[in-house]
């Protein structure tokens, strides 16, 4: 649809004028590409052990050195990015979808449903994440899916609450009453009128949530609660490198920088998106 393409082109056009947002976007795109093309980009197998070349410093052979088992750190960082982004993508999209549904039900539905859902959200949020993760891991054992599950469960209330508040604020608006007077059903109002109004804040929240989720995955893996070795994950790289910090700082540096980049990239991008998606500012240049 031409209108849709127009909106995307417009958003991109505005983003180009915001240098910080553009920096964020570039970082995000680089990280995405590096993770997607990790197998092509790395000459080494991230799991290949080479005991004769343990903890070597960066060289042409190993750009970021090797770890305590002689594995190529660069390869592990790139493959670790795949894990991190997979967790982020799956966890955020699932928790956003479920949070959206529950939040709309709470915000638009009857009062008793709202109370019930809010109690559920608050109960989930009141658990400290790490404690909660420990409990789950004790039950199921550490794995990638456990990490994703823990993050989904702890993120649903975050999205749910935001959607609920936004829906509640919107439902009292005249245009919703006008829609009702025009004969729109509840499903139609939610889908065609409430959703477009909360899509922007939700996208921004999701973008800002990526670093938190990536950090959580790294943290859980670092503690041995997440992705199990030898699978490369930024958390595992950090925890492996931690013991050899004095002799060889390279694994720690290599595992830490992507985390910082993810945080900066998605935050810059998200903040810039927040300014751009403000409908009051939309369409001001050009035809407006």
């Amino acid at each position, binding site marked *: 649809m031409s209108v849709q393409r127009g909106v995307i082109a417009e958003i991109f056009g505005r983003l180009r004028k915001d240098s910080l947002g553009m920096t964020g976007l570039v970082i995000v795109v680089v990280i995405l590409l590096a993770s997607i093309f990790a197998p092509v980009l790395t000459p080494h197998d991230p799991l290949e052990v080479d005991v004769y070349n343990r903890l070597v410093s960066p060289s042409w052979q190993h750009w970021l050195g090797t770890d305590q088992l002689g594995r190529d750190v660069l390869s592990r960082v790139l493959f670790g990015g795949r894990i991190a982004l997979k967790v982020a993508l799956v966890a955020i999209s699932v928790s956003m979808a479920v949070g959206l549904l529950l939040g709309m039900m709470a915000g638009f539905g009857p009062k008793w449903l709202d109370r019930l859902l809010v109690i559920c959200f608050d109960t989930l949020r009141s658990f400290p994440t790490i404690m909660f993760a420990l409990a789950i891991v004790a039950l199921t054992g550490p794995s990638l899916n456990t990490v994703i599950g823990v993050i989904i469960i702890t993120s649903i209330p975050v999205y749910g609450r935001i959607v609920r508040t936004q829906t509640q604020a919107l439902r009292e608006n*005249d245009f919703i009453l006008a829609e009702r007077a025009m004969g729109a059903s509840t499903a139609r109002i939610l889908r065609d009128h409430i959703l477009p109004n909360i899509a922007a804040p939700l996208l921004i929240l999701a973008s800002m949530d990526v670093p938190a989720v990536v950090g959580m995955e790294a943290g859980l893996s670092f503690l041995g609660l997440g992705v199990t070795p030898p699978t490369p994950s930024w958390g595992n790289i950090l925890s492996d490198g931690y013991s050899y910090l004095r002799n060889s700082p390279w694994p720690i540096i290599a595992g830490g920088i992507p985390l910082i980049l993810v945080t900066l990239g998605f935050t810059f991008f998200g903040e810039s998106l927040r300014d751009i998606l403000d409908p009051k500012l939309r369409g001001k240049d050009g035809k407006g």
Partner: protein
Amino acid sequence: MATPALDIRNLSVSYQTDRGELRALRNINLQIPAGRIIGIVGESGCGKSTLISAIIRLLAPNARISEGEILFRGDDLLGLDPKAMRALRGNEISVVFQDPMTSLNPVLTIGRQMLDVQHREKHPKAKKRARAIKMLERVGIPDPAEQLNRYPHHLSGGMRQRVAIAMALMTDPGLLIADEPTTALDATLEAQIIYRLQQLQRDFGCAILFISHHLGVIAELCDEVVVMYAGEVVESGTTRDVFLKPQHPYTRKLLDCDPARIKQATRKLPVIDGSLPDLLELPGGCVFRPRCDRCIETCAIERPELKGDRHRVACHVAGL
């Protein structure tokens, strides 16, 4: 006589509040003949908005229709199931709301909203779009095709109200309810919108229920007028009769307060002394009695009925 577009019989609506039952509308009788424009006047809080909500059956959850019926082309709206009622809304009965600044969805383009109104029709998008453009043209929006790609905040208040009217008329409704559509606009725009509404009414032939507290607008636009006070109809009749020969003391005072009718220069605008009665504890007899200067003994005891043939008035002393 043909069946009226809307026939409200003995309608009473009350709200359940913490302080008790608030009787917002009491025994309302009102007829809107097909293809006519009926105006409702009354000060804030007289039940105008409750009446609209009752007609389209979108009352607040704590409201209750205690008695009466609302006949739309002979069928009682209160007896319809929610689905059938929803099918009528925006199709046979449309509403234009007071504030055009808030009655359009801010994040959707005008075009999307105008296409959305036609969601019941199975036409291809291009045809719906063409209809939207045609409608915008009819309400007097310049360059309508271009406007479809704009967001509501790009348009002025008057333009938005025209869009709202275009949306309401899109489905060719039998009844258009206009809830103070010009109150939020300035005087020049008000005149333009009124003129446009008149013209559209002639073209579409729909009945219009026009709510306003601006007497001049009512006089200009409406065929008949209903005067409401504190949840009751106190006087109704042709615009000519009501404005030239007001019978009810409230109508007279209301007309006296119209700044357009004051002949002498004055710094003090006339007011009606007192305020609306507490709808939780209604006084017995006539509701207007506490503010009326012509009341007699009967007024305190007996509630006046709406009497008369074409020019009807609810007052014991009217015509005396």
